[in-house]
C-alpha cells in the first residue's frame, strides 16, 4: 500500500510537470511556433497516445479467462458504438462502463 508521503510526492510531481507543460510555452512561445517538428508531433501524437493508454489499461486481462475477456470485449464494442453514434464522451464512457461493470460483477466467480 502506498504511504502518504509517496502519494504526496506522486501528486506533487504530476502537478508540477503538468503545470510546467501548460505554463512554459508562454515563456518560449516564438521558438515553439516555428518548430515544425514539434507541431507535427502535436498533430499526430494524440490518437496514438490515447490508443497506447487504452491498451495499457487492459494489460492485466488474461486472454484465456473468458469471465474477464467477455466484459472487456463487450465494453469496448459498446464504447466504440456509443461514441460513433452519439459523439458524446459522457454517454459513451458511462454507458460502456455500466455495461462492463454489470457483466463483470455478474460473471465474477
Amino acid at each position, binding site marked *: 500500500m502506498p504511504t502518504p508521503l509517496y502519494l504526496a510526492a506522486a501528486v506533487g*510531481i504530476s502537478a508540477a510537470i503538468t503545470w510546467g507543460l501548460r505554463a*512554459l510555452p508562454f515563456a518560449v*512561445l516564438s521558438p515553439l511556433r516555428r518548430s515544425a517538428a514539434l507541431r507535427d508531433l502535436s498533430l499526430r501524437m494524440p490518437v496514438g497516445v490515447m490508443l497506447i493508454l487504452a491498451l495499457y489499461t487492459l494489460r492485466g486481462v488474461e486472454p484465456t479467462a473468458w469471465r474477464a475477456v467477455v466484459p472487456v470485449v463487450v465494453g469496448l464494442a459498446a464504447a466504440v458504438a456509443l461514441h460513433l453514434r452519439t459523439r458524446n464522451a459522457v454517454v459513451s464512457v458511462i454507458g460502456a462502463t455500466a455495461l462492463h461493470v454489470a457483466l463483470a460483477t455478474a460473471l465474477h466467480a
Partner: protein
Amino acid sequence: MFDARVRRDLTAAAADTASVGLSLFPLGVSLGVLVVHTGLEWWWATVFAAVVYAGSLEFLLLGLVAAVTPLAQIAVTALLVNFRHVFYALSFPLHQVSPRARVYATFALTDEAYALTAGGRARAWSGARILGMQALLQIYWAAGATVGAVAGSLIPVTLHGLEFALTALFVVLALDAWRARRDMPVPLMAAGSFAVAVLATPGQALLTAMILFTACLLARYALERRKGEPSVPQEAAREEVAALPVPVGAER
C-alpha cells in the same frame, strides 16, 4: 465586494461552462469512486482532482500509485500524457488575464478550458470571465471527485470492473483524435510500439511504448522532410492547432 461588472463576468462564465460541467461532474464522480476502490482515503480524490487537475492523468496515476510505481516513471508518464498541453499556449488568450493571475490561468489550462476559448471565441472576454470559467471547471471536477469518493466509501457494494471507465475514456479520446486527423500509419505505429514494448520490457511497457512511438513519429517526419513533402503545411497547421481533438465533454 463584487461590483456589477465582475458579477456579470461570473454569470457569463457560468453560462460558458454549463455544458462542459455536465460532463466533468459525472467523470469526477467515477474518479472519486475509483479512488476509494483503490484503497485510498476519500479525501485523496479531492487532492488528486484539485492539485493534479489533469483528468486522464489522474485516472492513470491512480493505477500507478496503487502499484507503488517509481516516481521517475510517474514523472515521465505525466510528461508524455500531458505533452499536448504545450500547444494550447498557441491560442489561449493569456494576455487578457492580469499578470498575477496568470499563474492560476496556466495551472488551470485544461483540455476543457482550452476548448472553451479556442478559435478566437474568447477574444473579447475579460480576465475575470476567463478566470471565472477556469475556476468553475475546476470546482465541477473536484466536487464530482469528492462526491464520488464519499459515496463510494459509504456504499459498501464492491462493483467489479469500475476501472474500465478509464479504458472507455481513452477509447473515446482516441476516436475523437482520429476524427480530427485520419492518418492511418499513426495508430498502427502506436499499436506496434505497444506490442514491442510489452514483449521487450514487460515491467515498463507504458514508458517504452511512448518512447518508441515518439521515435517513430520523428523518424517519419524526418523522412518526409527529406523527400521534400512537408507533412503539415505551415498555414494549415496553424489552423489545425485550434482544431486539435478536444477530449472529454467538449462536444457541444
